[in-house]
């Protein structure tokens, strides 16, 4: 549904954030977008939602170039940026002013999401803390019911119970015709929610795979020093001994995805990891 083709983009002439970068996203997925600081995660999200325009190449939502910012693409997508300002009105007023831009807007989703976050429509957007503001905006985002939803560091600023409420809200708003892209460094906050992982590094996509495919090819384990076999793709010290990533030779899913380990392994040994994923 979302096609990034040979994208080149930079904020100045000398330094390019993306060079000849391509990526394709399918439907019905919650994708985690991971990458080190400054590798262009937020930039990519802005480009995909038409807020920035590519210097070369194109980005297509269902075949339509998003740079034209046509109502039929803008009405189908929503972005929750990491930082944003909201007008000094009540949420009720905000909803009534903005809902008409989103043809699939759902009052039911808004109600259930507000209930999940323990909020109501009478809150005043000018009088909220950062976390509260984020939750209010996230409720509106989910209620727009767009087929393409992008969230940049959504769990930043959320208190402990809100992180769990956030997962519930996203899980309950998800349908087969939607795609949600979540960019984050707080991997523990979202790992059980994801069914797809994308790791980018400037001009390259280091990984773009479903979680089940990843777990069919890799095992994530805690081993003590005596249990190391030399077969490990990546190791890092942990309380129990070593956290390791191993090639999965059984062909079946054996362990749960450990996003942090996967990310570190992919950045440390991009070539070896790519090899594991070649058929």
């Amino acid at each position, binding site marked *: 549904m979302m096609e990034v083709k040979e994208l080149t983009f930079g904020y100045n002439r000398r330094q390019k954030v993306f060079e000849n970068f391509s990526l394709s996203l399918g439907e*019905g997925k*919650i994708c985690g977008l991971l990458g080190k600081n400054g590798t262009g995660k937020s930039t990519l999200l802005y480009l995909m939602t038409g807020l920035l325009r590519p210097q070369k190449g194109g980005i297509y939502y269902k075949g339509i170039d998003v740079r034209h910012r046509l109502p039929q693409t803008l009405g189908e997508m929503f972005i929750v940026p990491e930082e944003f300002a909201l007008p000094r009105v009540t949420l009720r007023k905000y909803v009534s002013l903005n809902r008409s831009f989103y043809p699939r807007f759902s009052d039911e989703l808004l109600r259930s999401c507000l209930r999940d976050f323990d909020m109501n429509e009478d809150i005043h957007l000018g009088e909220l803390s950062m976390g509260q503001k984020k939750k209010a905006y996230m409720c509106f985002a989910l209620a727009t019911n767009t087929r393409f939803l992008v969230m940049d560091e959504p769990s930043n600023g959320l208190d402990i119970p809100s992180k*769990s409420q956030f*997962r*519930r809200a996203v*899980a*309950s708003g*998800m349908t087969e015709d939607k795609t949600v892209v979540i960019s984050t460094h707080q991997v523990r906050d979202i790992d*059980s*929610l*994801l*069914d797809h992982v994308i790791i980018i590094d400037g001009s390259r996509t280091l990984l773009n795979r479903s979680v*089940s495919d990843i*777990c069919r090819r890799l*095992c*994530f*384990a*805690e*081993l003590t020093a005596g*249990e190391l*076999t030399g077969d490990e793709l990546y190791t890092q010290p942990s309380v*129990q001994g070593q956290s390791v990533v191993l090639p999965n030779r059984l062909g079946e*899913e*054996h*362990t*749960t*995805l450990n996003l942090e380990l996967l990310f570190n392994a992919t950045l440390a040994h991009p070539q070896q990891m790519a090899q594991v994923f070649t058929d």
Partner: protein
Amino acid sequence: MKFKESCPIYLQIADRICDEICQGLYVEEGRIPSVREYAVTVEVNVNTVVRSYDYLQSQEIIYNKRGLGYFVSHGAVEAIRQQRKTHFMQVELPEILKQFREMGLSPEGVARLYGEYLKDNP
């Protein structure tokens, strides 16, 4: 190779549902929550719960009634007990027996310990 078990999430969820069936939270021939409801409860992706339900269906622990949802199969509790017993005998017990040998425990010693345990925990 020995893993400190962290089995895939979809199987952990399937196991959780089996526990709930055994505890009587869902009765045989009774309806269980929809995939979406369950995904929200355990805060995971809907597709993960779809896989858990597919797995339980393949094990004949639950079944699907078109348009009505998922129901606990007749005889599910017994089936779960059987499966867990098989798993214990084939996977966990050999591990324990291996440790008995490493500790130098004789079969008689093990039998005595088990006898004492039964006396203390009637």
